[in-house]
């Protein structure tokens, strides 16, 4: 179990805390999603858990042990991180890229062993991209590259996987493919999966628990249906939304503001208004 306990974080030279006592936990086999608008502190929470930034107060526990002061070599065996899409410096092959996940398992003065290659290939297979193994990972699609990075995290063999906006650069189809894959991995490997998302609909569809954040606070946490409510969304995103029930599932639909467009005749405008309200 990963527990984040009342962490406060403030940048050097800045007056205000970015995180003001963030507290939640995440368990194995489940997807826990951090949801919130830009600037709500999701990414800061991630950087604190990853150990890149040190929170001034509070602790981060993994299986009841504080991990905030672990060196990177040890932390990497506990936490694997899938970064937001990045610009790769050199066109490594997919296999070489995934193999980098083994860096914490390979000693300083040696190269990866047969076992490390085996683990990398296993990870590639489990995300279903074996056919791309030899391809340069700069020349695969955005969705495939996200899967490569997920495979790299799997090769790390860590019980916790953090994904920072895994769908932010992907088209509709790839968003669904990648999130389904993440869910499958969480279920079968029993990993603690923690991810951040922008889109409340995707959070509703794919997460087991949702932690909604705004302005450095946790506003609400729990099951998606309980957290992603009209009231919460309105207060966090400051727009008008409706949560629609359909076939036992809930969908979020923003209400479109159309009162200021003068070109549309009044009659038509009222008709459109009615439609959307349904």
């Amino acid at each position, binding site marked *: 179990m990963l527990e984040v306990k009342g962490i406060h974080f403030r940048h050097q030279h800045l007056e205000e805390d970015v995180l003001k006592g963030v507290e939640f936990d995440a368990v194995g086999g489940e997807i826990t999603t951090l949801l919130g608008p830009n600037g709500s502190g999701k990414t800061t929470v991630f950087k604190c858990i*990853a*150990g*890149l930034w040190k929170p001034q107060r509070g602790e981060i526990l993994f299986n009841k042990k504080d991990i905030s002061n672990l*060196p*990177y*070599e*040890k*932390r*990497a*065996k506990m*936490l*694997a*991180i899938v*970064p937001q899409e*990045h610009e*790769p*410096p*050199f*066109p*490594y*092959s997919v296999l*070489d890229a995934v*193999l*980098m*996940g083994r*860096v*914490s398992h*390979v000693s*300083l*003065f*040696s*190269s*990866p062993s047969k076992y490390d290659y085996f683990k990398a290939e296993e990870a590639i297979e489990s995300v279903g991209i074996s056919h791309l193994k030899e391809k*340069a990972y*700069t*020349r695969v699609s955005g969705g495939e590259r996200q899967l490569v990075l997920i495979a*790299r995290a799997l090769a*790390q063999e860590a019980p916790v996987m953090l994904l920072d906006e895994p769908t932010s650069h992907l088209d509709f189809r790839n968003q669904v493919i990648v999130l389904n894959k993440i869910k499958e991995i969480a279920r079968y490997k029993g990993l603690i999966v923690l991810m951040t998302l922008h889109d409340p609909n995707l959070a509703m569809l794919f997460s087991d628990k949702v932690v909604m954040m705004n302005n450095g606070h946790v506003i609400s946490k729990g099951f998606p249906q309980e957290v992603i409510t009209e009231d919460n969304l309105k207060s966090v995103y400051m727009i008008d939304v409706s949560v629609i029930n359909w076939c036992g599932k809930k969908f979020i639909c923003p209400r479109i503001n159309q009162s200021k467009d003068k070109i549309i005749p009044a009659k038509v405008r009222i008709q459109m208004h009615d439609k959307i309200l349904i």
Partner: protein
Amino acid sequence: MVLITPFIAGWLALFIGAFNVSPVMVLKILLNDIIQSPYLSNIPERAIILDIRLPRVILAGLVGIALSGSGVTLQGIFRNPLVDPFILGISAGAALGCALSVGFFPQIPVQLTSFVFGVAAVILTYTISSTQGEVSRLPLILSGVIISAFFTAMVSIVKFLVEPHKLQSIVFWLMGSFSLSDWRLVKIAGAGIIAGLLPVFLMRWRLNAMSMGEDEAKTLGVNVRREMIIFIGASSLAVSIAVSVSGIIGWVGLMVPHLVRMLIGPDHKTLVPLSMAGGAAFMIFADTIARSLTDFDIPVGIITAIVGAPFFVYLMKKGGRESWGR
């Protein structure tokens, strides 16, 4: 294949030169000396091959390994294929060392001063960039530029002050040459360069993870600070030694790793050894041209650029955009 090119280049280099020695004779002399038979021991060819050409070829090879090996290392760390081994100010530091020795302290050998100042320049660069705690790429490159500019200005002052014939030898040294090679230099360079590049060679695979950027390398489990110090320290040592025995030879450290990357891909596990081999072969080749093209011993730095630039253009055209990593 690339791994044996230095030996082919070395063998070719041994029989090419102002004094003609047949390829067969070269092999005979080498073999004879290995089994230490007295036969052939007093012919002039033997002295030319063993005391003049062989140390020169080996030294050129070693310097090629040092420049290209540290070039590929720094390109990986700085995530930029356009970085060369002199980016942290080594060349400017070494140049000042040379200028001071030639200009004002002729009793101290050029090799020593250029080495000391080369290393000092890197240490200064590193210290300046780490004033804010963490050492990261952009501050390092910027400090390298600052240190280079400063030391270059100092070199200019020395050049301005010294007598013309001393100025000439400073300028000549700065162009890079192997004309002073002997076995003593081979031993110094060999020890320093091997000591410097051994950790780089052993840790080469980790450059893959390092090249993903600092934060990502950290989350993958790399102790970025420690490994950055090892990589930069080790390659700086090798380059400083190389510069101290041969002067400033440009292009090799930038170009050879780039060429090898175009040919075999970016995986540092194979890229590093092959860049080293390619650097050795290229340097021996360039030096052979430098000493045999005309009756003069042309500074090899000129040859590396003249030979390198067009070849580079050719490969660039052939490889197209892909080979640039995009």
